[in-house]
């Protein structure tokens, strides 16, 4: 077993004991990255990572992230490293500044290995729309399973145990869904908890920065490192950053947990249903209060449409800066219109253009009221319904996805409540975490915990409890057979 398969805390201890070095581990991670067949990388910054790792000589006992190798989703701005958001329109774009999360990790001396693939510009949930083509799920070596998206590459490199963690972003479920399909802990904390400065915006009112890890403790460590007010992001919160690694060990026994019946009822996979029910029974057995609550079916069914309208509307505006004039490939034209038109026609995939058209249509003066504003009102209704649950419960527990990772060419319609409900966490900016529940024929099933805003510690504490129940801490595609 390589140190790469361990947790952040275990690697840290190995460094302190002198059992390995950041340089050795970086070399090994690069070797694994090169051997990996999942098409997970936009950029492997071999030289940059090795040069930096070489400078790390004396482990810092208080700094758990010292020398820890990681990847970042390619929609996070990295100074000096090409950042394309997996879109041809940004081919060759080398940012002049680091995203705040990248800068924070640099300061903590974590080693950035490179950038991972995503659905183009973060728009998509399949991992199939990036400029480099499909990203595969490491749990399906024959490449017949999706990994989900949009943080596809970050999920893949963590699940393939190339690194102990990777940064992602989540606008609808872009961390939590692939985490579920790849057996990972995927966490997006409260909107405003982590600075979004340097995250290429998809839909700012829904966008979150978060991360993939293979255990809950690592998620707590990262949250503590990345949370906090940032003057460059006016929407970042100045709420105190808590000691999450300590708090996640607290007992969740006093918590009140709600399970939304309509979500669970929409499950069709019998194994998922059974495993989920067993986990609820186990919680109750342990003395955690778990109650079934109800939300109107029509409200839950409207989540996807609401999400699509709001996110597409914001996306069409946010991506209007991509016009070929300032960065990205430039195409000659007789007028500025022609220059922009060529760059955007050649630079975006058809799917992305479709979203822009939807967004633009929803914002048109004659449609705003019945599309954009109606979606905003519905978003507020959904958030109010969830907040009323939170007035009585600490957490909401549910499936993270209907089943295991879908086939590349799915035979069934993927438009159920259980498929789309995670966007609720984005609507209200609630902290939301997915973690593996069980393995079904070698493929992970995931569950989700969502909490009140700025109560990440409760999400982590119950996740930690569930992790000891499932015994799946440290799960990866490499050790899944042993863990089955």
């Amino acid at each position, binding site marked *: 077993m390589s140190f790469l398969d361990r947790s952040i805390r275990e690697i840290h201890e190995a460094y302190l004991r002198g059992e390995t070095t950041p340089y050795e581990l970086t070399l090994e991670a690069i070797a694994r990255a090169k051997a990996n067949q999942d098409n997970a990388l936009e950029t492997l910054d071999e030289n940059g990572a090795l040069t930096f790792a070489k400078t790390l000589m004396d482990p810092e006992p208080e700094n758990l992230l010292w020398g820890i190798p990681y990847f970042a989703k390619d929609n996070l*701005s990295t100074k000096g490293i090409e950042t394309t958001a997996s879109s041809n329109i*940004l081919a060759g*774009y080398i940012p002049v500044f680091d995203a705040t999360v990248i800068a924070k990790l640099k300061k903590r001396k974590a080693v950035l290995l490179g950038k991972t693939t995503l659905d183009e510009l973060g728009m998509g949930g399949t991992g199939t729309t990036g400029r480099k083509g499909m990203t595969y799920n490491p749990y399906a070596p024959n490449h017949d399973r999706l990994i989900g998206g949009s943080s596809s590459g970050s999920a893949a490199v963590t699940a393939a145990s190339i690194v102990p963690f990777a940064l992602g972003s989540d606008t609808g479920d872009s961390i939590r869904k692939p985490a579920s399909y790849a057996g990972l802990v995927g966490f997006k904390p409260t909107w405003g908890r982590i600075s979004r400065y340097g995250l290429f915006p998809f839909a700012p009112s829904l966008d979150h920065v978060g991360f993939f890890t293979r255990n809950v403790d690592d998620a707590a460590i990262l949250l503590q490192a990345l949370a906090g007010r940032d*003057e460059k992001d006016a929407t970042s919160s100045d709420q105190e950053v808590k000691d999450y690694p300590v708090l996640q060990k607290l007992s969740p026994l006093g918590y009140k947990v709600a399970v939304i019946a309509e979500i669970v009822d929409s499950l069709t996979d019998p194994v998922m249903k059974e495993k989920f029910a067993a986990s609820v029974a186990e919680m109750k057995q342990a003395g955690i209060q778990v109650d079934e609550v109800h939300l109107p079916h029509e409200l839950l069914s409207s989540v996807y449409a609401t999400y699509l309208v709001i996110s597409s509307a*914001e996306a*069409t505006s946010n991506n*209007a*800066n991509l016009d070929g004039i300032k960065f990205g490939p430039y195409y000659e034209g007789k007028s500025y219109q022609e220059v922009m038109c060529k760059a955007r026609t050649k630079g975006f995939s058809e799917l992305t253009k479709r979203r822009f058209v939807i967004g633009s249509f929803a*914002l048109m003066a004659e449609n*705003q009221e019945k599309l954009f504003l109606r979606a905003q009102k519905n978003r507020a209704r959904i958030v109010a319904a969830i907040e009323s649950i939170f007035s009585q419960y600490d957490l909401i527990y549910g499936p993270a996805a209907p089943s295991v990772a879908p086939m590349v060419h799915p035979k069934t319609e993927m438009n159920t409540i259980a498929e789309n409900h995670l966007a609720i966490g984005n609507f209200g900016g609630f902290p939301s975490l997915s973690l593996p529940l069980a393995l079904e024929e070698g493929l992970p099933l995931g569950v989700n915990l969502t909490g009140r805003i700025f109560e990440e510690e409760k999400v982590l504490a119950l996740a930690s409890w569930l992790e000891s129940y499932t015994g799946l801490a440290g799960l990866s595609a490499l050790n899944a057979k042993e863990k089955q």
Partner: protein
Amino acid sequence: MNIEAVIGIEIHVELKTKSKMFSAAPNAFSKTPNTNVAPLDMAFPGTMPVVNRQAVVHGIRVAYALHMEIARTLNFDRKNYFYADLPKGFQITQRFHPLGKEGYVTIFDLQNQPKKIAIERLHLEEDTCKQLHFRDYSLLDYNRAGVPLLEIVSYPDIHNGVEAVRYIEAIRNIVVYSRASDGKMEEGSLRCDVNVSIRPQGASFFGPKVELKNLNSLKNIQTAIDYEIARQSQCLASGMAIVQDTRRYDEAKGKTVSMRLKTEAIDYKYFPEPNILPIVLSEAMIEEAIATCPELYEAKKERYERMGLTPSQASVLLSDPAMASYFEAASEGSENPKTVANLLIVEVNAYLNKTGNGANISRFPLPPVSLKRIAAYREDGYTHQQCVEILEYCLREKARPEDALVALGITKADNDEEAIAAVVETVLAANPQSVSDFQAGKDRALSFLVGQAVKAAKGTLNPSVLAKALRERLNQEK
């Protein structure tokens, strides 16, 4: 049929702040293109807007001066459109909740009667980048991209070119004296778009609206409006349709030229800016902004008049804020500010005009304290002529007035009765013709005699005392 013009004006004012509206790049003049640029100004992906507090303070002060209702929450929106000078593909502005609404400013109309011009809205936004067009390419300068702008939109309450100019002057006085802006039209820090339409006098409907652009001086605005009213009236008279278009003022030809037709309005797809949460403007913050606002034009004018200046003296000093500051520094604690004003308006201005090349008071070498001293000499009984000599010496030799006094050997003109009497006698004896002219009723002869006496006294005697003595002596002779 009597025709009435209906005019509405949109004014964009560049605000004076250390950094730009939403980025940390300096908001400063730079000769080198693309040097005052932060990643946000070029819309690099992942950059986020942070509201400039000083711009908000400026906005609150101007809104208050315009008697506007000030918003208690600051909200920003996106105005979406594609254009080469718009880096983000949208402009951050305040569409739905402007910082100020429903105000007015009072001007004097053609009959010099006070008239209130109602103002619809005042809002904060950001400037675009500057385009330089060449024959087969264009260049972009992002120094201007993101410069804070205040937009002030009037109701169509203005009816002629003179009112338009007075309205713009009134707004300019407010933004300049609150130090919100340089307010320089020639340099583009105050820009006006003027909408002109005509209709029968007293009608309640509006004619087709023509928008005038490229108006970079008050003179151009007046000429362009006059031209436009005449042009539209002629169209109407000759039965031609007035076309709703955007017109450019051609300064050389003194006329407006159509740039483009105003077809369907562009749909800017406004929606709230998701990266700036609504910011509460506390009562305390608003009050503080207003309380600390520098003294405005109207208040200064009234104060100067209370200090003894004539309205026209006050206006001359206030036509240049730097001149007004100089005056205030030089008259501070002075017994007679009018003397300071007089020296500034007459002598200092004469010096500046002579220096030429756009020399202005901000580069005038004499410190205000020296002018104050010279004014004090004047009060103390030195003659105006002596004071002018001191001033000229100070400027020439870069000296202090005290040293000029010694160097020039100037002594105070006095009221020595014997000396005065002697001069009077000498002058009367030397000019018998003037004496008899005076006695024949020609008052002008006295002025000549006073002049001769001042000359004979070589500046050592007080001219007003000399004049008085001469008149008394001549009246005795009658």
